[in-house]
Each structure stands twice: as structure tokens, then as C-alpha cells.
């Protein structure tokens, strides 16, 4: 049999990184040409989105995305691992080019941004005073860092 056997005692998925909310969240990075580039050293940047923005994102998510997705299934650990080392701009690109499936690009840039704020909020990244920037280049400077150490 191929694959890697795990002992059943390890069955519960363990987060490599305990959910230390407030530790570190989104870091500033120079815009990268591609995802393969080496990641520049992260600078801390807590509170890159506001709670109100996340709440607006939640509304849109419920109306447009929830027919196919459960938020608990995409936020949280899954979000932290699948978007680690990519930027908020990458999420924006993916969502605005591919989602909602069947009608991609149908939300306004503002709505996509709000949904990213909602994902961040639900994944343990703390809200602050600012909103995620409107400018795509600015968005691409926000690198998602696995909540860690």
C-alpha cells in the first residue's frame, strides 16, 4: 500500500502552530514576482483589517458563497496553511478570477476584499482599526504568515 501510515493515536489533526491569536498576523513584504520567490523577512503588521469590514465580508459570504462553502471548512487551520506565504493580493486574485464558481468576477473589488477580511478574522488574525487597502499593489504587500511560535 502506498502513502504514509499514521498511528491512529495521531488521528486528530494537530496544528503545527498553536492558535496563538495576537502573536503575529500579516506581515509586510515587498511585492513578489511569483510565489516561488524566496520570502522576504516578515515585518509585523497587526490589525490590517477592521471588524466592521470582516462583518461586511461575512454578509456577502453568506449570500453568495455559502451555497457551496461552509466557512469553518475554509477559514481556520485550512486557511492558515493553504495561504501561508502568499499575499492578500494572491487571495484577491484567486477569488476575483475564480469565485463564485460559475459566476467569477461578479462581486465588486470591495466585496472581495471584505471577504478576505472575514477569512482573516475567522482564521485567528486580529482585527484593528484599518481596512484592507483598496489598491491591489498595497494588498500584494500583505503577506500571510502562518500564526506561529
Amino acid at each position: 500500500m502506498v502513502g504514509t501510515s499514521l498511528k491512529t493515536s495521531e488521528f486528530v489533526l494537530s496544528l503545527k502552530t498553536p492558535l496563538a491569536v495576537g502573536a503575529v498576523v500579516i506581515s509586510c513584504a515587498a511585492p513578489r514576482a511569483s510565489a516561488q520567490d524566496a520570502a522576504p523577512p516578515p515585518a509585523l503588521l497587526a490589525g490590517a483589517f477592521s471588524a466592521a469590514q470582516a462583518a461586511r465580508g461575512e454578509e456577502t459570504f453568506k449570500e453568495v458563497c455559502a451555497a457551496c462553502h461552509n466557512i469553518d471548512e475554509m477559514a481556520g487551520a485550512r486557511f492558515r496553511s493553504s495561504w501561508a506565504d502568499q499575499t492578500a493580493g494572491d487571495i484577491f486574485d484567486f477569488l476575483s478570477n475564480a469565485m463564485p464558481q460559475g459566476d467569477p468576477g461578479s462581486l465588486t473589488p470591495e466585496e472581495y476584499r471584505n471577504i478576505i477580511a472575514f477569512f482573516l478574522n475567522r482564521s485567528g488574525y486580529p482585527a484593528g482599526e484599518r481596512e484592507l487597502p483598496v489598491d491591489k499593489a498595497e494588498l500584494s504587500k500583505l503577506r500571510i504568515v502562518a500564526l506561529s511560535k
Partner: protein
Amino acid sequence: MRAFRSGQRVVGPPGVLAVALFLALSSTPSAQLPGTANGEWRYLGGDAGHTRSSTLNQINASNFSGLKAVWVYRGDNFGPGVEYTARSTPIHVNGTLYTVMGQRRQVAAIDAATGETRWTFREPDTMRYLRSPRTDFGKGVAYAEVDGRGVIFVSTPAFFLWALDAKTGRPLENWGTKPVPLKEFPKSGVIDMIPDLVSDWDPWLKWKGGAYDPDYGLPRQLGMITCSSPPIVANGVVVVLAGHEPSYDQTRIENVPADIQGYDAKTGKRLWKFHVIPRPGEVGHETWENDAWKHSGNMASWAPASADPQRGLVYIVTNASTYQFYTGHRPGHNLFGGSVLALDVKTGQRKWHYQIHHSDQWNYDIPTAPILMDLTVDGKRIPALIQNTKQGLIFALNRETGQPIWPIEERPVMQTQVPGNYTAKTQPYPTRPEPLDKIVLGGITDEYVMDWTPELKKRATDILSKFNIGGLYVPPLPYPHTNSYVNNVGCVGGLNIYHPPVADPTTGIMYASHQRGCSAPQYLVPTEGKDEERGLAGKSEEEWRGRERHTPTTGTTVARFKQGGPRTGVLPLMDGVPVYKPLNQALAAYDMNTGEKLWDIPVGQTPARLRNHPLLKGVNVPNVGGTGHSIQMVVGDLLVQTTEDLRGEAEANDKGMPLLHARDKKTGRILASVELPVPGQYGMMTFMHDKKQYIVVQAGSARRKQPGALVALALPD
């Protein structure tokens, strides 16, 4: 008007052709299977052949616009939270509708004329219910008469089978062979189907982790089983379909096979079990190389089934095994996955099978019930089965023999580049009828590149030159990879469970709504033995309550690859404009006697976002349909049709109200329309009660904050 010989290819206005064919065919004998006589709607799909059609004609083109909503039955009180979907098509028997409602999948008996609740039924709580990945997702109930008494059969998320008295909702007395040893369960009327499922399954027989716990269900290391679609009853046998956590949400390779089981409707005795993953000596066993049958599971039958009582056959469609996107641990065609199965209802013996796609790893699981009706092909009467797919390919088979009505070819398809993965060399392509959308045959070829302006065409061509273009069966690439292109791009052009195809047995015409979608699959990355992390990792199972699709992966062995890598490989839009010509929603009609597509018309309107796009200034943007999926049924001479807004936007009038249309079933033309209070979704049904015809639309809208509901319409007295 000139009548065309059927089978002849005619170019001309689709309406004229359709009318002509219709006239030519209307002399053939009716071929509807039982279920809709006397104004009833006894099966989920109306008749046993799941055509979703009725010959009732009190409601017709001349009075359609006078329809009024006579009652609305809301689902939001049937569960701990508000559910915006209404997945279940009710059945109608003698003045009562029966269905499952809301998040909890409770059973409801509803007065057909007034919408009053007659009774409801709620299964006692169990841990296995809480653990079920499909606590909701109920698609209906089954009905049969046993010794003159009406009985409602329901299979639940916790994998119990209940037999309820249709009059009272009470579990039947003296039904079932063994009481369920749980405090709140009645002594009779319910069966725990898990012991029956695993009684001959090696991993369970060798299990050292303790005795069976009927409250908890199967240990997670072994598998997870649930139900999604209702059972189907034919010739006194309740055939139970089984579901799973979708195999794309798993990362480990072991699971329990979703074997199909038959129970005696009268006694509850288990009569047979069909191995969906064939054991040694059984047909199809050799399609599991490396002894993968030993650990593989899933292969669920989550879509509804149909039946031909006269032939004593049930027809069931299946999906893929675990894990969905990487199959290196289960090389081979993997029968009976991605197949139509014809089983003898009395014995569970396989009469025939037809594999629609080999070794599914594209989430192409077959989403809708086989449609059964009789056709006249080249002058010969043929008992037919028509299978629609997500791909948009349409398979027409003789339902007696499983033989294709027109040749089906195996054609070479793109091969996987993921180390150790398996893809079948070829896949079946029907030569007739043509697919719902021909883009699936070759993908975004020149003909389909966005060319509404020269600038857009140039941009689209530039973008596409960075991708490797295919149609169907386009595999994900590993990441990183060394190809000169960014990613593969494939297209589907079919349908899904939430807009089922319908058919008119009086004419042999099949109607299916479809949507074009081209995309680049997400990359696969090595797992190195680590599961994909999920939202509730580490939380107790109780905390999963009400969170469907939250069962952690079953099994013990992590597949070698999972989806991952950067999301930079998507097929981009051009400032919101697709690189291919979009086709949001269209409704096609096929004369299945000849295999000819009669017409294919856009449903709804091109969204304003595209119509008024700055890059399309001055362009006469064609109607590519609205984004709401089209839902329909055949009623007399009409095709009653609406659009949903859960996965798109419903077509609405200038007051913003969703519309229910009466279309001419010959041409698809809208003859009359009426407002709906709530957008429709998933399906609809019609029935006659006390000389009055009703149309019941499954409804609900997250966008409009309108919970899942049933809306009944009728003409004023």
C-alpha cells in the same frame, strides 16, 4: 407545414424544426413509468423513471398567469439554524405531501390543499448524527403501500432506515428484525443499517478497537457512512442509497464502501447487499490494481435513483472513491465508480453496468438520477435510460441490456503528470447525441476564444498561450512542475443536482439546462503524510453539531498528494471578462428518438456587469443567459421553468420579483409568466387534489434572506 423524417438533419429555425418533430412523434404510444397517475407524484422524480413530468393540464398556457401562491411551507424551524436551501422534492399521495425539511432533515406530512402540517417526525439524537457530514442534504422520502397501508421510508444522516405510517408518522409496529438498542428509539419501525453494511467487510471483522457502538457508529479509522438521497421502493423492496463525506474533503485513503442494500418493505428484513467495490471473483474486481479494493471505500450513491418495476430493475448512479484528486493508491478503472448500475430489485444481482468515466478524479460524480422512458429509434421501440452528467455528455442506453443506443467511443485523454498517480488512457464519448455544450470536446479552441473586440481577442489569446488547453478529463498538475505552461485548462458544460434534467415520455424529448465553465485545476502537492488541515481540527466531535461537511477524514493512511501549492495557476479573467465566450445558462431540448438536439436557448439575460462592461463599449453583447440555474418540469404542453439564485442570480422582473414561466415545450418560447414570492431552486412538482391542480416550487434564497421553503401555486376558485 412539412413534417421531417425523424433522424434527418435539418438546418432551420429551431422552433419550426421542433414543432415538426413534435408532430411527427406525437403518434407514438405513451411510455411513462408509474407514479403520476391520478394526479399523484409518488416518486421524487414524479414517476419511477424520474422524468419530472406530468400530463395534468388544468394549468395551461391560457390561465398560467393567473396562478397564485396558495401556501408557503417554511423549513427554518426544522433545525438549529436557518437553511436557505430546499433540496427535497415532495411526493404527493392522496391529498398529502411528504418531504424532509430544513437542516435537521425532519420528515413532514403536509396537507396538500392548505399547507397545514399533518405530522412531523424527528429521529432521536445520536452521536453518529452529529458526526454525519450530511446532517442536512435531505432529498426526500420514498413511499409504498404495504398490505394496503401507506408507508413512508426515510434513510437518515445517521444511517438508520425508518418505516413510518403515512397517516400518523408513527414508526411501524412489527417492522425490522432487531430493535435499535438505544434508549430513545422505538422498539420497532427502525433499522440500524451499519451492522448490515459491515457484516461481511474485513476491516470491521478484524477491528480490535472495541465492540460496535450504535450511538457512535463506525469508528473513524474505518470509515463514515451516511445517506443523502432517499431510498427507492420497487416491487416490495426498499433499496437504500448511501452517501459519504465527499471524497474531495478527505485526505486519507481508507473508507467503508457504500454498498447498496435492499430491505423487505413489509418486514424490514435485509434481503441483499450489492458490493459497489467488487470483491474477489466478482465482475470488475480486476479494476482495482494493487489490491486497492481491500482498503478503498466511498463509491457512494448520493444522487437519487430510478426504477422500472415491470422489469424489476433499479438504476443507481455512483461517484468516486477516496481520495478524490489523487488515485495512485487505487490504479485501475475502479468499478463501479462513476457508473450507472442496473440491479435486480429482488436479489441485488447486477443486471448490467455502464461506466460513464473511468477512475474519477475530477469531481465528475454523476449528479442526477437516470431518466427512464421508451423511445422509437429507427422504427424500433427501445426501453431507454438517459444519463446526464456534470461533463455535459449525454449517455443513451437500452435499460434492459445496458447497450448504448448509439455508438460510444473510447477517446484518448490528457494524462496525469503527478508522480505515482493513475489516469485512464481513454474515456467514453457518446457519438450521439451531441454534448450539451460542444466546448467540452476540445476545450477553448479558436471558436470559443473571447473575440467580442479585437483587443479582447488579443488579450485572451495571449493569456491562453500560457496554458495547456484541453476539454474534459484535464488532470491537475503537480507543483512545482517543469512544463513551459502555467497550468492545464479544462471545460465542463453540463449540470448538477440542483437543476435536474427532465423528459417528456409522451414525445421522447429530454430537456436539460447547462452552464459552461472553464478553469485550471488546483495543483497537487506531496502530503508527506500530513492531512489537509480543516477548520475544526482538534475540536471534539460534539462541536461539529450542525456543521455539515465537517467530519474529519476517515482512515489511517494519508494519500501521497493533496490539493495545494500557490493559487497563481488560475485561469484569469480580463478585468472581469472571461477569456472564453461565456454561456451562463441555457436550456436544451433533445429528441431522444433520434438523438438530435432540437434547440438550445439562453435562459435569463446576460448580466449587466458584462453587458455594460467598459471593455465592451459599442459591442452588441449576445445573450449568454443569466447566472441562475434553470429548473424545469414538463406539465401537459408546457415546460414550467424558473431560475435559482443560490449559485447565481435568479431572473427577475422590473419589480425584482423572480419569475415562473410557462414555456411552450415544443419551442421553449415563453408563453406566460407569473411572479414567485421566493426564487425557486433544485426542483418542482405538480399534482391534482380535489379536482384542483397545484404546482409546488422548492424555494429559498440566501441573497434575499428567504429560508428554504415550498411554495404551492394554484388557480383561484
